[in-house]
């Protein structure tokens, strides 16, 4: 038995279902919540109404280095660190609160939440394992996510120096096109 008391098991179930609603994958639950895999699997199916996706979690730190993910990851990680530095929130609670603040920010600005909860959790683990580190931007003084052992004393962030065609993804362009066509069709 991994959990001894019913009360702590109840708390685990509550926390796990909250995490599933926020988009956590089964691996996150297995690592963070002391419930059996069978229980977590059942809970996942009950909350989501479908089986959890199979396959491994993304394990590369490179994803966090591309332009848009880097900005979103830096925002989330800054929020997470703020909570650790200035409040009593720790562990999963800090993850959930920081992720909520991140989502709120992204939704206020009408952009897509690029970082999923599971990615955010992976990001924290990468930091703890010292595979990623902070880099201070020379332009704005903000802290951004960078590879460990990168030379960062001359670092400029992707927002101070926006690369050409940044954010103009294949996905973003056709949407505008179809809206225009739709409007043209109506007119």
């Amino acid at each position: 038995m991994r959990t001894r008391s019913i009360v702590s098991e109840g708390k685990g179930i509550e926390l796990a279902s909250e995490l599933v609603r926020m988009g956590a994958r089964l691996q996150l639950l297995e690592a963070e919540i002391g419930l059996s895999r069978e229980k977590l699997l059942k809970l996942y199916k009950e909350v989501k109404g479908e089986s959890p996706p199979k396959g491994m979690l993304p394990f590369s730190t490179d994803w966090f280095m591309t332009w848009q993910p880097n900005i979103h990851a830096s925002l989330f990680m800054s929020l997470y660190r703020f909570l650790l530095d200035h409040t009593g929130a720790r562990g999963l609670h800090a993850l959930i609160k920081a992720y909520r603040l991140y989502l709120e920010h992204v939704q206020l600005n009408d952009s897509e939440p690029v970082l999923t909860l599971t990615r955010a959790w992976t990001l924290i683990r990468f930091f703890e394992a010292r595979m990623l580190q902070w880099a201070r931007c020379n332009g704005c003084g903000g802290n951004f996510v960078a590879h460990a052992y990168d030379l960062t004393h001359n670092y400029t962030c992707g927002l101070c120096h926006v690369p050409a065609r940044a954010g103009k993804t294949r996905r973003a362009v056709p949407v505008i096109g179809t809206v225009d066509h739709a409007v043209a069709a109506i007119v």
Partner: protein
Amino acid sequence: MTGAEIHNEIREVNLAYLMLAQQLVRADRDSAVFRLGISTQLAEVIERLTPGQVLRMASSSMLLCRLRFEDRMLTDLLASHEREAGMSRLHAAILAAGEPVEHLA
């Protein structure tokens, strides 16, 4: 604006600020600490204020809250309209999360 008008306006802003702050802290203290930019201790003090204390504090002739971001960069970003607004707000949020909070002296 006459002296009495100024005093009235200040009291209203103070009252709105204190009531909002109290609500935020009561709903979720940790997020409130981030939103308000104050320390946990200060948040606890605000949480414990009675309605009478809130009223007395609000009717001072000075503003109780002040500009949080003295950083020139941050004010530039928050006020800028040149670039895509969403991106500069995202940038400002990253910088703001790195700012220190108000502490109890």
